[in-house]
Every structure is written in structure tokens, then in C-alpha cells.
């Protein structure tokens, strides 16, 4: 597994150590969780996720656009109605 070095302020480093101790995790685990929550993914992993979503959906181009248009229009009309337009 690759290793890296990062520079933190004294305050951030203390906070990191305290958070790790409180949660019973290592600093590596805390940083990994934070990166996960921040949505840090490789483009490859995102493209893979997208490919799986497309396979799961299985809609033709026509069906996909019909569904997207219908749902987008529904949300916009709901939003307009909520404003009293």
C-alpha cells in the first residue's frame, strides 16, 4: 500500500490524534474515512460505478431520455407550484 507524508497545523494534528483516540481508530483509518466522506475517488472508480449503474438500469437511449425528461419536469413543476407560480 502506498505511503505519503502530509503537513498539518499543530492544532489539526492534535485534533486528529484526539479523534482517533476517541473513536478507537488509527490515524490512517480516520484519514481514510474522511477522504471517503469527502467523496475522494479515482476517476476510474467513478467510471466503474457509472458503468454498473447503466448496466443495472438497462434502459435504451429513448427510454432513458423519456424518464429523465418526465422526472425533471415533475420536479420543476412541483417547485413552481410550491412557489405559487
Amino acid at each position, binding site marked *: 500500500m502506498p505511503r505519503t507524508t502530509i503537513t498539518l497545523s499543530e492544532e489539526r494534528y492534535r485534533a486528529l490524534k484526539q479523534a482517533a483516540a476517541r473513536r478507537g481508530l488509527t490515524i490512517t483509518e480516520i484519514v481514510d474515512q474522511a477522504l471517503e466522506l469527502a*467523496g475522494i475517488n479515482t476517476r476510474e472508480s*467513478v*467510471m466503474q460505478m457509472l458503468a454498473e449503474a*447503466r448496466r443495472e438500469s438497462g434502459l435504451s*437511449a429513448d427510454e*432513458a431520455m423519456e424518464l429523465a425528461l418526465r422526472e425533471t*419536469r415533475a*420536479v*420543476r413543476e412541483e417547485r413552481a407550484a410550491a412557489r405559487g407560480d
Partner: protein
Amino acid sequence: MRRAPCERNAPRPVATDIVARLFLVDTNVVVSGIVGLDAQSPPVLILDAMLRGELPFVISADLLAEYHEILVRPSIAARHAMPASKVDALLAELTTAAYLRQPQAELVSDDDPPPSGPPGDEHIIRLLAHEPRAALVTGDQSLLDAVRGWREVVSPAALVTLLGLTPPAA
């Protein structure tokens, strides 16, 4: 509801009159690019180009929120089967490639009066008012018709032709 040309085999409108090289990609294109299986369909090609950083596009907080709102609606989520965390990850990746703009909440322009689009499309109009260099890419023919003449508009199929988008080599 009328649709702008989208399918691979649909007649393609002439796209050579589009000079914009910055685009506002409407929610219907992004969403159909996620739930559509056909790798050659214009929305899929457009979304992939956005994610690869090959299609300069603008986004606002309102538009990003709408992408999210539609993608987590039950009827859409049931298709792509991504949990909200994956939707967030996908949109986070998309955002890293976007040019973020923050238009004013109210449209005020005597010199460049915006059209009144279909109900609920104000965030699109606001973003186009704020970023006049952007061309609207939408599959919604009524929005396309409303904006045409005020800003550049292009259907998904025409954009694919214009930019020569193709699936990445395997």
C-alpha cells in the same frame, strides 16, 4: 412533452452555427446519461466527456442540487440502484470538472431580457443570464425553444456531432 433529438439515429440538426465552447448541460441529459445503457447515445457520450474534462461546462449550486434531487427520486434511483453515497461521489467527481458559477437570485436585466421558460426552469435561465457564453444542452424541446434566440442552444445529438464525441477506446 416534446423531445429534442437525442437518439443516435435521429436526424441531426445542423450544429455548425454553434460558436459556444462552454456548455450548460441540462439535468435531463445528465440523468439520461446515467440511466441509459447505450454507450453510443448522445447523453452517455456527453456525460462521459464531462467526467473526463473534455467538455467545458458550467454549473451552479441550484443546478447541482437539482441533479442530486432527480437522481435520488425513487423512480430514478430504482433504475440505477446507486445508494445516495454513490450519487454523491459521482456528482463530486462531476463538480471537479465544472466551471462553478453563482448567479444572482433575481434576474435583473433591461439590456438582455431573459425569456420566460417553462415552469421551474428559472435556475437554468439565471445561469444562462449570468454566463452568456454558455450554450444550453437539453433534451427538452420546450426549454430549447424558449431559450433559442436569446442564448445558443443545442440538442444532445447536435452537440455530439459538433464535438465529434465518441466512446473512449476500450
